[in-house]
């Protein structure tokens, strides 16, 4: 049995908690949140003990063998390091950190202590994204040329409005577009240069358009939005022989429309739903647990998380300077 402690009872903590509940060989043993109400609510939903701090949780639950950090980005480094004192396995939500330095410190700290660190780039577990990658690798579109992705919806609500603070979340580019940076890098390898433009200085409205040029020649255009209503994601891979096209707005197998006049309450980050036996979050976490037990390398490593962060920060820099940013690889420094 693997005993899990979740830190952070927000949107992602809630999604992870429900995933663990249905997972064989896994027990959700505790939930930590300094917000007593949020902790209590999720604790009641999942029938799990709650604690205000990680220390108190570990005192009461010494059997915990994995800690899952679902906190706002700016708290990741502090809490991953803290978790590493107690357990051998740590899962950290994406993005790993706000800066390369923080991410490297986190990775090196875990490496030195022999801690397995996993980063939650969940798009690699979305079946539509997995299938598209497979079709491209099987030659389904010939040589890929221009790739377009889109992701987003409304401006996310979070604790103390942490998404509004570039200091805390890194904004849309780090929090949202990092999914596509990681996924596209998984498909096409390393990025050579990044250009990005975004709207600036608007309250609860963010929108960014990024162009990536990969070392293999592929051009990718990414749209990230916190200016639309309702979450959606899409991609189109155009190659010299074929096109792979997907739009979550069009691939809706179940659509309930209620006759109500009250407005829909939104809370936290919008999480896309798709009626699958095992949702992508479940698959991701199950894979991480499997890797912990078997020693197998995960589909997405913390070095991948670092590389995705590097692209995101380059996009941010391009947006700030109005100039394309050529990537300096951080990999060599890591392997030193």
């Amino acid at each position, binding site marked *: 049995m693997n005993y899990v402690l979740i830190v952070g009872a927000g949107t992602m903590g809630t999604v992870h908690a429900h995933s663990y509940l249905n997972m064989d060989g896994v027990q959700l043993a505790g939930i930590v949140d300094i917000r007593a109400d949020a902790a209590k609510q999720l604790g009641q939903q999942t029938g799990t003990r709650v604690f205000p701090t990680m220390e108190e949780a570990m005192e009461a639950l010494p059997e915990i063998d994995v800690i899952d950090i679902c906190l706002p980005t700016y708290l990741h480094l502090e809490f991953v390091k803290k978790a590493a004192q107690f357990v051998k396995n740590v899962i950290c939500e994406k993005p790993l950190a706000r800066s390369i330095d923080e991410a490297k410190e986190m990775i090196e700290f875990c490496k030195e202590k022999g801690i397995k660190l996993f980063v939650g780039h969940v798009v690699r577990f979305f079946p539509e994204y997995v299938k598209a990658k497979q079709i491209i690798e099987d030659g389904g579109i010939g*040589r*890929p*040329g*221009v790739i*377009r992705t889109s992701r987003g919806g409304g401006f996310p609500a979070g604790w103390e409005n942490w998404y509004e603070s570039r200091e805390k979340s890194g904004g849309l580019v780090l929090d949202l577009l990092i999914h596509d940076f990681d996924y596209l890098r998984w498909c096409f390898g390393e990025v050579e*240069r990044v*250009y990005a*433009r*975004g*709207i600036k200085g*608007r309250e609860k*409205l963010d*929108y960014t*358009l990024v*162009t990536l*040029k990969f070392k293999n*020649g*592929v*051009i990718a*255009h990414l*749209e990230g*939005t916190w*200016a*639309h*209503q309702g979450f959606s994601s899409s991609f189109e891979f*155009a190659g*010299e*022989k*074929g*096109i792979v096209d997907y739009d979550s707005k069009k691939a809706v197998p179940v659509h309930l429309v209620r006759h109500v006049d009250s407005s829909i309450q939104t809370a936290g980050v919008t999480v896309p739903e798709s009626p699958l036996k095992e949702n992508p979050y479940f698959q991701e976490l199950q894979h991480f647990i499997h890797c912990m037990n078997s020693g197998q390398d995960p589909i997405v490593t913390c070095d991948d998380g670092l590389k995705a962060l590097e692209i995101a920060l380059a996009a941010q820099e391009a947006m700030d300077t*109005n*100039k*394309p940013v050529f990537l300096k690889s951080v990999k060599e420094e890591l392997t030193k």
Partner: protein
Amino acid sequence: MKLAIISFAHMHAFSYAKAIQSYPGAKLAGIYDDDPNRGERAAEDFNTQYYESLDVLLSTDIDAVIITSENSMHKVHTVAAARAGKHVLCEKPLATNIEDSLEMIRTCKENNIILQTAFPVRFSSPVLRAKTIIDSGELGEVLAIKGTNRGTNPGGWFIQPEFSGGGAVIDHTVHVVDIMRWFLKSEVKEVYAEVDNRFVSEKIDDCGILSMEFDNGTIATLDCSWSRNPSFPTWGDVTLEIVGTKGTLSVDAFAQKIDVFNERGHKYHYWGDEMDAGLMGDFIESIKEERIPSISGLDGLKALEVALAAYKSSRQKEPIQLSQV
């Protein structure tokens, strides 16, 4: 009103010919083409006269010409028509370089004739509706536009730079840039572009992503790639995703279609309004009323400048200020 078509090199000549013939009071009075076979066939198709000499055609009593020759020939044909006192509707891009465009605009002005650039997308019913919504203020301030004008490799002279002036970027940048300028009432200030050759075997730019900033601060991108393959259900698209302070607006100019699945595969059959008829009507009415056409030669030049800046940006790997073109 008598109109003539100069060259059937560009496939749009066919729909323009149809638009002339279905316009009340307009007559397709002749066709000139430097390729006699092509010209004679077209004249036969449209039941009109073929002229093997442009000068002879221009000496007749026609009022105006539609120029659908190769891009590199636009200047020669426009200048000849202008000197003969014939109004000009010129296929886009207006020319292959700034100097030719300026000469065309100048000559038409000197001869007091209308020079209209063929940007039919301005007459697309969905695009017109979007313009109305934006002008009404319903979207608030427009902050960003994500556009696409993707297409199929047209082949032929389109992929011979000496005739076309370039590939996908010069071919497919100008339509949507024109729409963006028209919507925003603002000019492009800066362009960054990634341009490459990844779809066709001939050495020509066939894909590009442009990023732009307008004078009013609006940001925009445009995908001008020839990235549609022969099995794609249609030739291409014109789409605009518009983000405003009060809402968002999604425009897909060719979404009015039905899907057909048969032994030829899956194809879209468009049933929306034909925009070439609107363009032709505007040109003809402008001549009749002796008014300034709603799309000028300058509009053609402004859109061309952006395409040329995109090439320069791609070569230099840096953003280009439009005044530098």
